[in-house]
């Protein structure tokens, strides 16, 4: 597949501070705050928006169907076109790409993508149950009923295949919680040690409380525009250079044991004895990366990407994702983080915002939050929005955002590029 549409730019964004519970605001008001921030930042008004995409994951959390239209209504965007996009944890990434498609197709010149989730209306255990309803309810939910359990099994197999250690996983937690210390939007900034991570309560072996992201209330908004409108409305737009989306079987048990989908620079002989994806890797992540890199003309991702915001719902899935994205070869994810290559000033800054682990994971908002933080990185406007430039990646020119659902069922990869 080769992209044929017109160029799409991101021209503004807004995010609410993610928190365990913000009962003083409902989802409509939360989106409104992020939306108004985005409009104000680009000096835009409602009339500039041609339509929207609504991004939220679960109807269970609030027991409100058609929550999307309630936001559309509250924002004053009726009767403009809108639709809801849903795909588990990747809802935000899929919606961001749906917004891209609205503009690339020429249907809209300016599209607002708004994402939200209110997870605080149920307790954490009920929340785990609702999330687990996004596993096959005939076969997987009644057996495990717990996503951390599924990811823990993948992590155990990754450790078996490649010798990945729990200390290497802990390094992801340390890095991401540490980065969040300078992100005012983050829910869980923390300065941690390997001992802190390993001594925190075991959730599902080998993943402890600090290897797992939290539930959150939050909202995020990204405004996308055609080339003409982007430069008319914004001094410093960011080009969306390529998108990719991959899928895999709903049940983890159905994943095949075949050959690696190769990226440029990889050879079949690199993976002679590897059965792929099995349960240690995400084929959907790899195929999303292949599509996005082709569209963006990337042949050496580690060299050509300056910053990555990826879906670290678990420390183990961040390590698995380095490999799927080709930041290192399969099997090298553990050493990659251990050697500091993913640090803020490492080879490529991965999750400088703190990622899901430390920023929070209000599902429908998460993938859009990544887009907003990436937009600010590539605009070099982190200082303006965070009131602190510690997390600004110097010379950030090209970035990648990655959104991920289920046990790796839907995965999106979007490459963004500074043009100024």
């Amino acid at each position, binding site marked *: 597949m080769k992209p044929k549409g017109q160029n799409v730019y991101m021209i503004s964004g807004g995010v609410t501070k993610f928190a365990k519970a913000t*009962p*003083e605001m409902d989802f409509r008001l939360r989106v409104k705050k992020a939306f108004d921030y985005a409009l104000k930042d680009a000096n835009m008004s409602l009339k500039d928006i041609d339509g929207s995409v609504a991004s939220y994951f679960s109807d269970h959390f609030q*027991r409100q169907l058609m929550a999307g239209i309630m936001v559309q209504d509250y924002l004053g965007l009726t009767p403009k076109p809108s639709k809801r996009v849903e795909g588990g944890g990747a809802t935000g990434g899929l919606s961001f790409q749906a917004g891209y498609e609205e503009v690339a197709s020429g249907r809209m010149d300016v599209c607002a993508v708004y994402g939200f989730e209110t997870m605080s209306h149920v*307790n954490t*255990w*009920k929340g*785990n*149950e609702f*999330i*687990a309803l996004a596993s096959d309810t*005939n*076969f*997987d939910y*009644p*057996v*495990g*009923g*717990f996503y*951390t*359990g*599924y990811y*823990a*099994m*993948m992590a*155990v*197999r990754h450790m*078996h295949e490649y010798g990945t250690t729990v200390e290497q996983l802990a390094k992801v937690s340390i890095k991401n919680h540490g980065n969040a210390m300078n992100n005012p939007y983050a829910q869980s900034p923390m300065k941690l040690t390997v001992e802190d991570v390993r001594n925190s*309560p*075991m*959730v*599902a*072996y*080998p993943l402890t409380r600090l290897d797992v992201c939290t539930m959150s209330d939050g909202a995020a908004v990204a405004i996308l525009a055609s080339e003409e409108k982007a430069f008319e409305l914004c001094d410093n737009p960011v080009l969306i250079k390529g998108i990719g989306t991959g899928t895999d*079987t709903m*049940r*983890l*048990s*159905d*994943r*095949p*044991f075949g050959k690696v989908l190769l990226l440029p620079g990889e050879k079949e002989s690199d993976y002679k004895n590897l059965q792929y994806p099995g*349960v240690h890797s995400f084929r959907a992540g790899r195929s999303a990366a292949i599509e996005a890199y082709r569209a963006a003309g990337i042949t050496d991702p580690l060299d050509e990407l300056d910053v990555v915001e990826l879906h670290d719902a678990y420390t183990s899935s961040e390590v698995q994702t380095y490999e799927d994205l080709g930041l290192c070869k399969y099997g090298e994810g553990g050493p990659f983080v251990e050697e500091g290559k993913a640090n803020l000033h490492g080879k490529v800054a991965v999750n400088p915002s703190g990622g899901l682990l430390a920023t929070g994971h209000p599902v429908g908002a998460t993938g859009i939050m990544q887009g907003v933080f990436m937009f600010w990185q590539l605009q070099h406007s982190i200082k303006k929005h965070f009131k602190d430039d510690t997390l600004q990646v110097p010379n950030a020119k090209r970035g990648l955002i990655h959104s991920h659902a289920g046990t790796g069922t839907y995965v999106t990869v979007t490459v963004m590029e500074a043009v100024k």
Partner: protein
Amino acid sequence: MTLNPNARMEETQNGTEVYNVDPLIVKSHYEIDYIHSYAQDSEFFRALGKKKLMGSKCKECGYTYATPRGHCMMCGAETEWYQLPNEGKVHTFTTCYFGGEEFLSETPFHLIMVEFEGVNSLFMARLIGADHEDLKIGMKVRARFRRNLRISPTDVYFVPVAEE
């Protein structure tokens, strides 16, 4: 015509639990029984009552699944039922110390993915009869079946195979 300007809604004792007043946070209850059909996968659940674990085999390409699956993901053809061996090996494992609300009272519990000789895909199940420290990739496990069925995939579970 029954226009009654003094009409009043009946007063009841059905109040609402209030958790907080600013903002106002109340309890909202929800409960439902579904009429859930296992449809084309019904045979899998019936077979568990006969102490048989049924997977699927593609009639066209021969790909074998350790799970029920009406059509083949490799070629799209219809599958047929295929009896799995009663013994397999642990492909991967975990022990869950927390979980969803429905299973919280069962924690800690072990989850495993089972690989069967000559079968192309895995099967997810609970394992009992072992401590966490005993769990190893490659350990031999055997399927056992509940006598009183719940008509759930947990009607089959696995136990370690005794060392010879």
